[in-house]
């Protein structure tokens, strides 16, 4: 057995995807309309856009939690049909198992994949260290703050070492200091273990700091308004003129979006 359950970074192809939700009033909502893009292996792609434009929906489609109403979602050329651990997701609403302690939550995927106990414990410890929750390992989710829960969700997804990481506003509830540290850590992980990342955020600066490309979605129904490649050397400097230039451009794009 290898030391982790690492899977290689895949390509992602979203081809002409429409997503329509049936609603209780019978009218239905079109969350995404004709969305197409591809992501290369190991690419870090951020999705930005106004609230309700379909960012979560897009991440859920790639994760296999939803199926498109029409169009296709391919990961490594294979249509996505159901969730799988090589496409681990960090949820906007955390979704921790309330009956499991912090460390049991983080260990969940490793247990299910039959990772040997000593390897598992080591990995869980490393993940908790990474997100700064080693001292809360035996706490239950109900005893944690929102930001802590979010970090447990992050650790839980990272623990299975997925080739494709789907992150739905993963740092939305953490304080700004922790947020900066986690941004750095995530970039470190992404650099050392090649991963394809789909990262949803409201924070334009974060998008420019982290990503190779930024997809700007327009309002309901969501469409890809723009696909901006961030051509800045890493590590990036927030005070750099070129950095600020990207932030301004993206701000304008998002702001003039309906």
């Amino acid at each position, binding site marked *: 057995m290898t030391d982790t359950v690492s899977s290689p970074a895949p390509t992602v192809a979203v081809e002409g995807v429409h997503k329509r939700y049936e609603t209780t009033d019978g009218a239905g909502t079109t969350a995404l309309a004709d969305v197409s893009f591809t992501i290369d292996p190991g690419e870090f792609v951020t999705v930005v856009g106004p609230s309700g434009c379909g960012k979560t929906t897009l991440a859920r489609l790639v994760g296999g939690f939803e199926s498109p109403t029409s169009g296709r979602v391919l990961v490594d050329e294979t249509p996505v049909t159901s*969730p*799988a651990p090589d496409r*681990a997701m960090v949820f906007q609403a955390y979704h921790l198992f309330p009956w499991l302690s912090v460390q049991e939550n983080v260990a969940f995927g490793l247990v*299910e994949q039959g990772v040997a106990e000593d390897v598992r414990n080591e990995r869980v410890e490393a993940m908790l260290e990474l997100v700064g929750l080693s001292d809360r390992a035996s706490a239950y989710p109900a005893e944690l703050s929102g930001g802590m829960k979010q970090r447990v969700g992050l650790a*839980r997804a990272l623990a299975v070492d997925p080739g494709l990481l789907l992150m739905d506003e993963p740092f939305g509830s953490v304080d700004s200091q922790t947020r900066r540290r986690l941004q750095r850590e995530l970039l470190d992980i992404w650099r050392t273990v090649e991963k394809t990342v789909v990262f949803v955020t409201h924070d334009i600066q974060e998008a420019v700091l982290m990503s190779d490309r930024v997809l700007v979605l327009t309002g309901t129904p969501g469409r890809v308004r723009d696909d901006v490649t961030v051509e800045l050397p890493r590590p990036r400097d927030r005070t750099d003129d070129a950095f600020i230039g990207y932030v301004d451009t993206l701000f304008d794009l998002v702001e003039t979006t309906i």
Partner: protein
Amino acid sequence: MANDFSLRSGTEHGHRTSTRDLSRKWDYARLRRGVFGTAAFLVVWWVAASTQPTYLLPSPLEVGGALWGELASGALFVHLGQSLLHYLPGVALGVTAGGALGIAMGWWGRLDDVLTPVVRVLRPIPPLAWIVFAIIWFGLGHTGAAFIVFIGAFWITFYNAYSGVENSSRELLEVATNLGIDSEYRLIRRVVIPDATPELLTGIRTSVGQCWMMVVAAELFGAPGVGYEIITSANNLAMERSVAYMLAISAVFLASDWGVRRLEARLLRWQP
């Protein structure tokens, strides 16, 4: 701060006893009020009894005497033992079978469709109504009484397990598949059952309590045990002995309820 606490302790306790109240330290003001209430009750009972002959209303003292007699002779334990002989297997089997069927029907929609009509018809039948079959099939011994208890525990646990599973979180099931669960068995074990544990435990606690009522009811029809002693003593106009056995039921009810609450508090310590 102190004032704030005492204000709250006055309103919050009310009649509600949640599992968490067990871990609370002794609240002496509350204890005092409880002792006062009990004493007042005994006085009212005693005064009322003094105006009536024993065969209509035995006094607390007479009941105490009868209770002591049954304890000292060991008769009380013999009859409690007989009751336990129906109660324990009935509850254990009923909770297990009812819980299993409730989980299965809550999880597999097809099975639910197939069995729902039958369940709808059978569930409202009071367990005691089955006494006729209990008598014909098993006779009025331990098995017959255990059968009645089984039916009671079965439906109570079934209902709770079913609704617990039916309301299980879709999101958590998604997370579990995302983290690598790909068999229904693992999903049920790792998510469905833990998620339904609060409801399951409510089912078990309700069964454990209600089944004392059922055991006594079944014994009133003639199965040996505490219920049988209550009715035969009354037939002999030894009302103080009847009441002594009624109190014995109270005692075992309280003890078993306490036990399940402890279990609940332990298994649900993750709840806020």
